């Protein structure tokens, strides 16, 4: 029952790529960093051999060249003594080190797009700071684009140029950093920002979003957020709002901001 949509990558492919073509892209031009580094590494292979696998699949390289490459990439992500540590098994690595190894694996084929799914969720804050610093440096060195997925708005702010907010399977708002945090438009974004304790400002009382996230088996009709929204109008439950650009580079899917509802726009 799935609908097919073409996802354009680099705007070169305009037909659906075959599975073998996709295999070249995966791990090559598009690489992914998974959420839990410990479970995304295979416990029965050494870290080095797992990085080697990615390189072997995508590049023509001699064995000695591959080893050289692994050592180089491991030292780039900040693993001490890479020549020895590449022969270690994942359990011999700490959480932060394992995450570095996973990042090294993703970077081993110079990806153009790096998808990072909550790359620091399982790490302590001081280690998280190290990893974020590393990703920033690597973005600069490799010039890769990053799609950073996460729920920690602090982490997102650190790395992102643009932020898109998702709710129940739909994109509800997208803008640059200041747009989202200084002028949040969608009621969900607004409520989300007020519900988190902040270090920088004194939080008196946290905002509560009533209800829970809907089940996606039967999402609410119209705007998926309307049952929990304090501004919900009649139209919200009837028709789905479309993402519209209301400010330069700031798009939002909410009837409060669309043209046929001028009375609410001045809010």
């Amino acid at each position, binding site marked *: 029952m799935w609908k097919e949509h073409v996802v354009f990558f680099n705007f070169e492919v305009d037909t659906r790529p075959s599975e073998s073509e996709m295999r070249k892209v995966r791990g090559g031009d598009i690489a992914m960093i998974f959420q839990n580094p410990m479970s995304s590494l295979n416990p029965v292979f050494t870290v080095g051999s797992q990085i080697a696998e990615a390189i072997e699949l995508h590049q023509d390289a001699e064995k000695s060249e591959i080893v050289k490459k692994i050592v180089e990439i491991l030292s780039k992500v900040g693993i001490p003594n890479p020549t020895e540590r590449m022969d270690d098994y994942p359990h011999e690595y700490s959480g932060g080190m394992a995450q570095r190894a996973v990042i090294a694996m993703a970077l081993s084929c110079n990806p153009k797009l790096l998808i990072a799914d909550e790359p620091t969720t399982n790490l302590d804050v001081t280690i998280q700071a190290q990893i974020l610093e590393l990703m920033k440096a690597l973005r600069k060195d490799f010039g890769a684009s990053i799609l950073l997925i996460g729920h920690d708005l602090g982490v997102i702010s650190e790395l992102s140029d643009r932020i898109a907010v998702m709710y129940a399977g739909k994109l509800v708002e997208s803008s640059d950093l200041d747009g989202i945090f200084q002028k949040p438009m969608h009621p969900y974004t607004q409520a989300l920002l007020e*519900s*988190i304790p902040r270090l920088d400002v004194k939080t008196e009382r946290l*905002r509560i979003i009533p209800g829970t996230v809907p089940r996606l088996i039967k999402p609410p009709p119209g705007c998926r957020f309307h049952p929990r929204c304090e501004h919900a109008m009649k139209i919200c439950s009837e028709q789905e709002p479309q993402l519209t650009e209301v400010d330069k580079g700031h798009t939002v899917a909410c009837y409060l901001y669309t043209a046929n509802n001028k009375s609410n726009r001045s809010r």
Partner: protein
Amino acid sequence: MSETMLEINNLTKYFPIYGGVLLRQVAAIHAVDGVSFDIKRGETLGLVGESGCGKTTLSRVALRLIEPTAGAVRYLGRDLFKLSNQEMRKLRLEMAMIFQDPYACLNPRMTLADIVGEPLTIHGLARGEERKRRIVELVKKVGLAPFHMYRYPHEFSGGQKQRIGIARALASNPKFLVADEPVSSLDVSVRAQILNLLEDLQEEFGFTYLYISHDLSTVKHMCDRSHDLSTVKHMCDRIAVMYVGKLVELAPTKEIFANPQHPYTEALISAIPIPGRRASEKRIILKGTVPTPIDPPPGCRFNPRCAFSQPFNPRCAFSQPICAKKEPELIETRKGHFVACHLRK
């Protein structure tokens, strides 16, 4: 200053590691090592630290859920470890714990009513109609409905489960509550509900909290309540920072954020990404990882990662700075601000 609720004195807990053919003790995990502090009545003391630094062990020893290796815990002046089991059981009425993982701390075979009613039965607080009335009252207090009473834990969401855990903790009318990472396993939007509930309950019943978390933002939120000082006078909410089994800093919330004295606290605060703000250049990035508590570094446990304690000449035995040699003691550098660092004397 108000009355001291809990006094922790030089508390130490080592977990032995057995090994070899004869299974002799070969090493020990120094989970909590000589920690002392006190908690005033009506206060929220926040305990922060990275994973594995001994926060949870400390809270367990403080409630005598496990026996310490050394040290004392006094609850309203009574040494918990000198009490008999019967006496301890009576005291347990006044202390309760809200656990970290609401999925794991509820018995899947018990209904909500059984779970919340169990402390009432165990302590003989209420039975029959009275017990039922009390359960309904507790269930309502934490924001659940009476029709939920005969449901099993799997029928609730994570936030609701944590509410059940809180209702159970409230059942015996405690005075002192330990909340061990009560929101870390919950969704961001549900966290606010639980934090607000904990605050409301404190205001209503005058609870004393030991609030444990690795997340400085929620700890700051919970331990910074100067806005409702009208209810409890002289209340002074503080934050304690732990590092590898040791307390490194203890100060009032405002003070610790405005003026962190220990290099670790400073790094910890600066490491937290702030929503809506790009990282500043001033951020302190700590090198290395937290050392293992099996073999903690000599001297100050933070010294291998500390920017201020670089040995002048690492090859010369005499030029080692004091940090790697002598363990710093927790001393009061200004009023109410304690820090364990050789640089702050």
